[in-house]
């Protein structure tokens, strides 16, 4: 289905009785984050629950807009702050941009995807706007009615509901893959923002540079993760996981002991002192499933566990399991996948 994608200039009129939700869209090097698009689509879903909600978007920094075509659901205005000075995240600049739009549009609720950027920016905005900040929301449906949301605490052993106490509210929502049903009348207007009039003082800190890893991919954003635990045996044994990840189009992750051993970098660590991930598929190889590790994979859609111990706690949270030595199972899995992919 082809969706209308128009560009408007100037300001639109507004109805004061409407409840206005603002969704912040994040880009890096011109690519809009999938997590931001997911958040936009989730907020659009919320808006269908209440007819008095309007959704507005704000995209900071120059970005390729064609990539958004057909991926964003619903109706609303998307503001583009496409000046080069917004291309790299700067807390002060971004704060001023967002507060400006919040005021101009009389928005009551601000939404971010739960990312490295929003974890830095949202708490600052909370103080500046005197707004309630509800971060890492996994269940958001109650936001439309009461403003409350739900998320897991204490390594995923407790689930808690948080309610805002201020008239302005900020939410960061944890990732959940969305497959938006885009109706033919879906209509998003693009509005280029006039350069915001704030004075460019020496905003600190200054970003001196950006060093991206060769693949540029991150476990926090991956759709498929192949993770290994101490039972892998050595750093070299992770080559098999890399091969499996490559075949599946995913990335390699690691449990804490593996990182502590220095087999893998901390950027790949998943769990309480690592990253929280939300892939469609999580393959846990030789990971026993300590609560600290499970804390990071609560949002994984399907979990596959390969472990030699049939009583390993990882099997309690797995959808599919193979009991066996990873060193024997992995070569078969790799071989089987190679065959499978060849046939397709």
């Amino acid at each position, binding site marked *: 289905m082809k969706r209308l994608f128009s560009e408007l200039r100037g300001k639109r009129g507004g109805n004061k009785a409407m409840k206005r939700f603002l969704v912040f869209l994040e880009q890096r090097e011109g690519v809009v984050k999938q997590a931001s698009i997911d958040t936009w689509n989730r907020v659009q879903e919320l808006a269908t629950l209440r007819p008095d909600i309007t959704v507005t978007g704000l995209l900071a920094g120059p970005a390729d807009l064609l990539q958004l075509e057909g991926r964003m659901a619903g109706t609303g205005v998307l503001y583009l702050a496409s000046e080069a000075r917004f291309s790299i995240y700067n807390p002060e600049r971004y704060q001023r941009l967002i507060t400006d739009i919040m005021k101009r549009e009389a928005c009551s609720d601000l939404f971010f995807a739960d*990312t490295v950027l929003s974890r830095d920016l949202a*708490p600052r905005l909370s103080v500046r706007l005197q707004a309630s900040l509800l971060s890492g929301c996994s269940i958001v449906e109650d936001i439309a009615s009461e403003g409350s949301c739900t998320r897991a605490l204490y390594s995923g052993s407790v689930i808690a509901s948080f309610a805002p*106490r201020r008239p302005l509210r900020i939410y960061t929502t944890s990732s959940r893959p969305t497959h938006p049903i885009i109706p033919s009348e879906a209509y998003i207007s693009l509005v280029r923002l006039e350069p915001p009039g704030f004075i460019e003082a020496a905003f600190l800190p200054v970003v*001196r540079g950006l060093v*991206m890893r060769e693949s540029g991919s991150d476990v926090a954003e991956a759709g498929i993760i192949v993770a290994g635990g101490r039972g892998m045996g050595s750093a070299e044994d992770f080559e098999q996981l890399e091969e499996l990840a490559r075949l599946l189009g995913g990335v390699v992750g690691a449990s804490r002991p593996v990182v502590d051993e220095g087999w893998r970098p901390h950027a790949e660590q998943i769990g309480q002192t690592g990253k929280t991930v939300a892939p469609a*598929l999580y393959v846990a190889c030789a990971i026993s499933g300590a609560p600290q590790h499970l804390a990071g994979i609560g949002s994984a859609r399907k979990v596959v566990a390969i472990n030699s111990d049939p009583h390993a706690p990882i099997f309690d949270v797995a*959808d599919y399991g*193979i009991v066996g030595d990873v060193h024997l199972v992995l070569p078969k899995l790799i071989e089987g996948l190679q065959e499978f992919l060849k046939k397709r």
Partner: protein
Amino acid sequence: MVVQWLSGETAMDIAVCLCQVPDTASVISVLDGAVDLSRVHEVMNPFDEYALEEAVRLKERFEGSVVTLFCAAPPSAKEMLRKALALGGDRAVLISGTEEPSDPFQTALLLSRAISACYATALPDLILCGKHSTDFQSAQVPLMLAELLDIASVSAIIKLNASTEGIQVEREIEGGIELLDLHYPALFSVEKGLNVPRKTTIKAVIEARKKPIEHLSLTLSESPFVAITAMKPLIRKKQCRFVSDAKELIRLLSHEEALF
């Protein structure tokens, strides 16, 4: 302010914010809609250990520097503060309000007032915090504190290089690393990987007994921004389907789950 001594050496005032979390072995149970803390053993937040270690390393490098620990918690946190003093802190401030802070904003508020009160004329040169507490993982307090103190800040740093002129830091972003430059004063929240914290020694534990823990009583006049309205145990058990061979697994994942 960074004091330039005649020798050319620099002394810094460093504040470290600490909090307590249940240790990883604790069983968390919910009682009347709240976590039953009576069955929980509390320890220093693991991320705060990296913040403290970095502060102590800076103190060792810049002679004459003073590391002050700040903690907004009930009096029972004293034991944790003693340990932090044994790890290299010079003095500690235990902040108690008329009531306990109930959200990150109130905690940040108490910390900002305590820091302002302790460094009467200026801010400390550096404020270090853990990236987040491992129990709630909100990661809100450090940045709220920076905003309240109106101080430059960077979150989740994995490298810190301080000189008399300024500070260079690195932080991890999705898929890479961001390099940043700052001037003093600055606040950082720290990520795992910044350093490997030291262990306490018996000598340090004995010496820590002589170090001061000051009690600071503050009134919380502002209401919290957020309230917890419900809490219940989360049971995440799935029914695992065991398969005997790799081929069968591939078939299930591709055909039944349509994952690839």
